[in-house]
């Protein structure tokens, strides 16, 4: 469990993001390891949003079910999160909102609105809150001061000074009246780290993997990847296009890919549905494309701004007809960066669609990470050398490994034909059964090479566990923390995390999971999609899957509670979370 967990709540449009961004920067620069999870409603103003910031000296992998500090920018935030406070927890609130009496909870009232008005405008309430939070964590004003200067500098001197005055008022108020109501952070060795969210990690990975063309239609929660790439597109020589719909987005990417550049599309469930036919086209036309699908719960519109892992079956099966594909689901932002690079390379190497599954929890959560290792980034151009190819060029030449040398449009002397029909080696439409068979077999010969690419499930925890968890994607963090808690209580536990779901690493999965006595999958869906995949691909039967399907992130406590329901309380009594 992290040293301190802070929940920051308020209405949409109240400036919560500004406070949280500044606070995260402040803590990151002080050297802390952070995990900040965002919980927001599908609305632009009002409602109730919150951000949970876990602070520690070591990496934090999963959101927490409880908070040590609640910073409530409005009355509703105080009411909603009071019961989540740990013993001795602190509530920071506006003095205008009279708090209820709750045993074991300390309240720190700050006249946020009054201080803001004194500084010149109600909008400065955010700065008051920032100053007060810093004081509760016993962080001095110097860092806050510097940060506000940096952040508001471009808005002019007046904005800077007024924000600083407001922050100082909040800071001073805590120091003066609530000196005993603080929760100081233990100092850490300072180190330069990145403060990065999953969307940036995926975007950065795609760009490091040679992305040249990205097209998408905005859809939460995938839009933040598109935003990040677009913001840096000009500098990196990438073309970014907002398409009229997801159908256009994927087809645009395929055209660009045929012209020889690396392409990606970003979308979420419903948008992916619309791309289905285009993905099938990528399959038969053997056109590389990376599809980042950022999952949200529900069929149709579901819960647009919430998290879930319901699209594994979809990614494994989307598109009519049969064709090979890769499906990846990284567990952390760091893994997402390297997986995105890997995805860009593999799409090009095998000329197949590659899925990168993330979820709202991954893309919207901030973490502190050491800089990615640029030396680990291997960029290889898989386009063929025309001088080494026989004349005339055949786009779909039958090769032993199933991969046909690919030339871009515009190659002197070559006619490059991409076709959505069953086709001959040169791309010409055909219905000849012999050629059809040969082409289908050629495409599936790629699977042999694809299966040999890196992508084995990883193992974490005890070597000979009594309890084993299996998960994919972002369930990793909570499962890992649950495994730590179980081992901490003397119950030997371990977990397998699947980053690659297709081609499924059956041999490695069997090696890790066969004959495990108590085995459960942990997933953000109702039906246990990994459990069924495991059974189908390996014959391994798992117990009742631990599933969360209410749109909220899985926590370690959630997993342990479900295990108690299945196996009885007794064994888990000593597990502390």
């Amino acid at each position, binding site marked *: 469990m992290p040293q301190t967990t802070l929940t920051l709540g308020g209405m949409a449009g109240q400036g919560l993001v500004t406070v949280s961004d500044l606070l995260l920067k402040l803590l*990151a*620069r002080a050297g802390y390891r952070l995990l900040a999870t965002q919980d927001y409603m599908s609305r632009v103003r009002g409602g109730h949003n919150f951000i949970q910031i876990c602070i520690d000296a070591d990496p934090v992998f999963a959101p927490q079910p409880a908070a040590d500090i609640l910073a409530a920018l409005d009355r509703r935030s105080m009411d909603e999160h009071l019961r989540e406070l740990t013993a001795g927890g602190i509530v920071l609130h506006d003095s205008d909102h009279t708090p209820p009496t709750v045993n074991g909870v300390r309240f720190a009232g700050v006249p946020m609105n009054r201080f803001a008005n004194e500084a010149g405008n109600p909008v400065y309430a955010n700065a008051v809150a920032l100053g007060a939070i810093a004081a509760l964590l016993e962080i001095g004003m110097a860092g806050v001061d510097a940060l506000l200067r940096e952040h508001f500098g471009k808005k002019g001197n007046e904005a800077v000074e007024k924000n600083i005055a407001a922050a100082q008022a909040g800071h001073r108020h805590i120091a003066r009246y609530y000196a005993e109501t603080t929760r100081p952070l233990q100092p850490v060795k300072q180190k*330069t*780290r*990145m*403060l*990065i969210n999953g969307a940036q990690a995926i975007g950065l990975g795609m*760009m*490091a993997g040679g992305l*040249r*063309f990205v*097209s998408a239609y905005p859809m939460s929660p995938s839009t933040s990847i598109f935003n990040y790439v677009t913001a*840096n597109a000009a500098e*990196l*020589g*990438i*073309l970014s296009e907002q*398409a*009229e*719909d997801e*159908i*256009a*987005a*994927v*087809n*645009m*990417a*395929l*055209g*660009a*890919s*045929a*012209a*020889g*550049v690396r*392409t990606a599309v970003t979308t979420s469930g419903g948008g992916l549905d619309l791309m289905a*036919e*285009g993905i099938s*086209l990528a399959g038969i*036309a053997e056109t590389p494309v990376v599809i980042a699908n950022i999952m949200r719960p529900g069929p149709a519109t579901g819960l647009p701004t919430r998290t879930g892992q319901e699209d594994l079956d979809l990614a494994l099966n989307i598109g009519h007809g049969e064709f090979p594909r890769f499906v990846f689901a990284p567990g952390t932002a760091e893994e997402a960066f390297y997986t995105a690079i890997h995805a860009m390379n593999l799409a090009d190497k095998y000329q197949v669609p590659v899925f990168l599954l993330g979820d709202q929890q991954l893309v919207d959560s901030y973490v502190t990470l050491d*800089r*990615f290792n*640029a030396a680990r*980034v291997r*960029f290889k151009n898989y386009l063929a050398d025309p001088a080494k190819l026989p004349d005339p060029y055949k786009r779909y030449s039958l090769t032993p490994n199933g991969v046909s040398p690919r030339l*871009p*449009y*515009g190659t002197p*002397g*070559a*006619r*490059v*034909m*991409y*076709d*959505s*029909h069953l086709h001959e080696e040169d*791309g*010409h*439409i055909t219905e000849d059964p012999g050629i059809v068979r040969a082409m289908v077999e050629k495409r599936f010969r790629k699977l042999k090479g694809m299966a040999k690419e890196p992508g084995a499930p990883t193992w974490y925890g005890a070597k000979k566990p009594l309890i084993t968890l299996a998960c994919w994607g972002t369930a990793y963090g909570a499962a890992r923390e649950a495994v730590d808690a179980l081992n901490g209580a003397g119950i030997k536990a371990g977990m397998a995390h699947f980053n690659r779901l297709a081609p499924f690493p059956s041999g490695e999965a069997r090696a890790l999971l066969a004959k495990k006595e108590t085995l459960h999958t942990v997933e953000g869906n109702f039906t246990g999609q990994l459990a069924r995949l495991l059974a189908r691909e390996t014959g391994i039967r798992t117990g009742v899957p631990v599933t969360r399907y209410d749109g909220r992130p899985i926590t370690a406590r959630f997993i342990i509670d479900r295990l108690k329901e299945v196996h009885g309380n007794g064994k888990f009594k000593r597990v502390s979370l």
Partner: protein
Amino acid sequence: MENSNAFRYEGEKAWCPGCGDFAILSSVEKALTRAGKKPEEVLTVSGIGQAAKLPHYLKTNGFNGLHGRALPPAFGAKTANHRLTVIVTSGDGDVYGEGGNHFIHAIRRNTEMTLIVHNNQVYGLTKGQASPTSDKGMKTKLQPDGVILTPFNPLAVAIALGAPFVARSFSKEIDLTAELIGQAMECGGFALIDVLQPCVSFNKVNTYQWYQQRAYRLGPEHDPADRMKALAKAFEWDEKIPLGVIYKNPRPGYVATVIGDAKPLVERDVDMEKIKGLMARLY
């Protein structure tokens, strides 16, 4: 006829004898030959339908994609390598029906490419259902009491959206079509050429004779720069159908605006120093 043109495909073409597609194919070959293009410099893109088979029967680069989805991959390919001459050649069902949304936004996007729509006012490949441009009253198996929907007017829509080049031809007018394609390729933006074309198998209303009785060539008195006059011409249909350049509205295309003089995307390399720079900013 330029029998020795570099674009000529000699194999079998799976079109009905007498289909207007043959003539449109000849026009495309002619226009490319006259423009001095090399096959490798040209990309022909299509969706699905009888007309959409054309890229298979033309010796250029090709992308024969999905029904209704010819324009998006054409955009992707053109922006990835803007040195390519991109021609999109597909039918009325494909471009105006299934792909109607892309048609609208492709004109708004104004990418430098030529769209040739083989408009026979009927679905050919699926055997004779109404298309978006079928005239009211046309009876088919799926419209047994006749079409009641108002026909889509591609020219009027394109003019309303400010397309830089809007023209109409008739498949039999091979030279006119070739001439219009030539002008379209030079227009510096998105060009629409709607080519009326009989469907000898399924359209018993709009036959060769039907078109020939109505089609006439616009003379020098028509000013294609005049938007309202162009619109009036776009609505001429039942008695007289104008052929030629209906509307001209030169404006910078997408590539000129977004990419300019820069290298094509396909010639650009990954710069790891810039990636490192992005990481340094995440602090």
